[in-house]
């Protein structure tokens, strides 16, 4: 994380803050968003208070919020996330909305993501030993059913791998047509992978490509830290740095950068 601090000194924001800003911009105004905690929770608040004031947030414990919590959350069940909620229903209420196809965007983290956007949060592989990770939670449900799935994770070669060892949450499987063949809803699937180095998006064939690099990051560095031969967009973008408005929302909510260090 020393590098993130260097970035903070040189550019005025951390990688985490850049990822939150990039994630927030994936939320359209008026959209229904399956939020989760950590970076996506901050992204939802940033979106609500900048370009998407009518976005609605859903949480797996059954909470629906039209106004985001004004306090930092460590979990979606923290008391500030329930006080002032629009609705506190059951888990099936929000999962039902998801299955109906009403949820526009879902955010997910992952231990591993592969070239087709499949996620693994069940088994880790370090030093050739299998490590049991916590599992799906609601990630598999969101990956199966949300109209667009956005994945956030730190960019390194082990975590952005050619094929995940275990599909906890399906992306595009092995490519074009796979999701339909499995029986997954037609309007669903991975939309972007936001990392500490850039933003990946998906071609019609279901394979990820590099769509944008973050300021100060080279394509060579991204490729060297990706576990497969990553395709690069013809018109590669540079991620827009977080605006003052975006940063002020994040820092008001998370002044000690608990989630964005």
């Amino acid at each position, binding site marked *: 994380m020393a590098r993130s601090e260097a970035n903070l000194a040189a550019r005025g924001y951390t990688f985490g803050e850049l990822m939150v800003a990039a994630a927030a911009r994936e939320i359209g105004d008026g959209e229904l968003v399956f939020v989760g905690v950590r970076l996506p929770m901050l992204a939802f608040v940033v979106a609500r208070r900048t370009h998407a004031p009518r976005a609605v947030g859903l949480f797996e*414990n059954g909470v629906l919020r039209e106004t985001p919590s004004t306090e930092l959350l460590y979990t979606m*069940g923290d*008391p500030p996330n329930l006080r002032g909620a629009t609705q506190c229903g*059951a*888990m099936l209420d929000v999962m039902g909305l998801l299955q109906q196809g009403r949820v526009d965007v879902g955010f997910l983290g992952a231990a591993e993501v592969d070239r087709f956007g499949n996620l693994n949060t069940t088994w880790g592989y370090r030093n050739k030993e299998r490590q049991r990770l916590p599992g799906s939670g*609601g990630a598999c*449900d969101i990956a*199966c059913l949300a109209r667009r799935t956005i994945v956030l994770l730190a960019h390194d070669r082990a975590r952005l791998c050619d094929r995940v060892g275990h599909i906890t949450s*399906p992306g595009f*499987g092995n490519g074009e047509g796979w999701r339909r063949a499995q029986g997954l809803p037609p309007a669903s699937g991975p939309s972007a992978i936001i990392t500490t180095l850039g933003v990946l998006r998906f071609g019609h064939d279901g394979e990820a490509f590099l769509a944008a690099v973050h300021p100060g990051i080279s394509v060579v560095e991204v490729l060297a830290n990706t576990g497969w031969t990553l395709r690069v967009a013809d018109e590669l973008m540079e991620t827009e740095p977080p605006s003052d408005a975006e940063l002020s929302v994040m820092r008001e909510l998370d002044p000690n950068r608990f989630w964005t260090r």
Partner: protein
Amino acid sequence: MTAESKLLTMRDAIARHVPSGSMVLLGAQLEQMIPFAAGHELIRQSRRDLTLVGPISDILFDQLIGAGCVSRVMAAWVGNVSAGVGYCFRRAVERSIPRRLEVVDYSNFTMALALHAGALGVPFLPTYATLGSDLLKKNGNLREFSSPVSEEKLVAVRALRPDVAILHVQRSDAQGNAHIWGSLGVAVDGARAARKVIVVAEEIVEPSVIASDPNHTLIPGFLVAAVVHEPGGAHPSPVQGYCGRDHAFFTEYHERTRRLEDFEGWLARWVVQVTDRTEYWKHLGVARVQALAVKEHAFSAPADFGY
């Protein structure tokens, strides 16, 4: 007519209603209202071969696994929500320490559907969730089938009927008619799917208080086998309107359970050598308890049931 009180101490409730080998639903309200006091009593009474059922559970499943009470976990997520992995869970799965653990992986939605099916009294419910995932391949309670009414593949989620659901609630009467508000998760279905329910309440109130707001009565008392009055019994998880989340406790647990010997020390200090919840609260210390108290009440507007 006054029904007989179901009030029991935690010790008696666990002794009477949760034998070894039971399938137990815990953590139905996700990160809120996790029945830690009940879990600790299960550990003190040396239950074995439990099957734990729940969507996430936070660190309670990890503690029960580390204490050797569990032979099977059916859950969507086992770990420490604000701090990361659960080390006892990892030790059990990777190295069978302290004993072998069978894990049946669900997603949150499929767990909720399994309990909903149990609550509805049907053998399964259909969903698109988990299609294409390895959860579907490895969990025998998730089966792909062709829809009888459309040209689609679906997943049949087999009903779950836990032997007992332990649910922490804000308030209950002595018969177990209970009000819950805030984070509901799978509590309503969990109570109905289970063969019996233990209610753990912050407050015991008169039946008239419960009947004053029947929309908040999420557990009807006839489903309930025992009511335990255990204020603070969900610590370190929060109870809306009663107790905040002790974030530091979760972080400390993470740090102090990384090594097996450290976990054993943690378990002795916080569970085994603690006789009951009163002593546990003394152990926490006045400053910590005060820091978790509700700082600013936020009462809902009363609903008028008059006519």
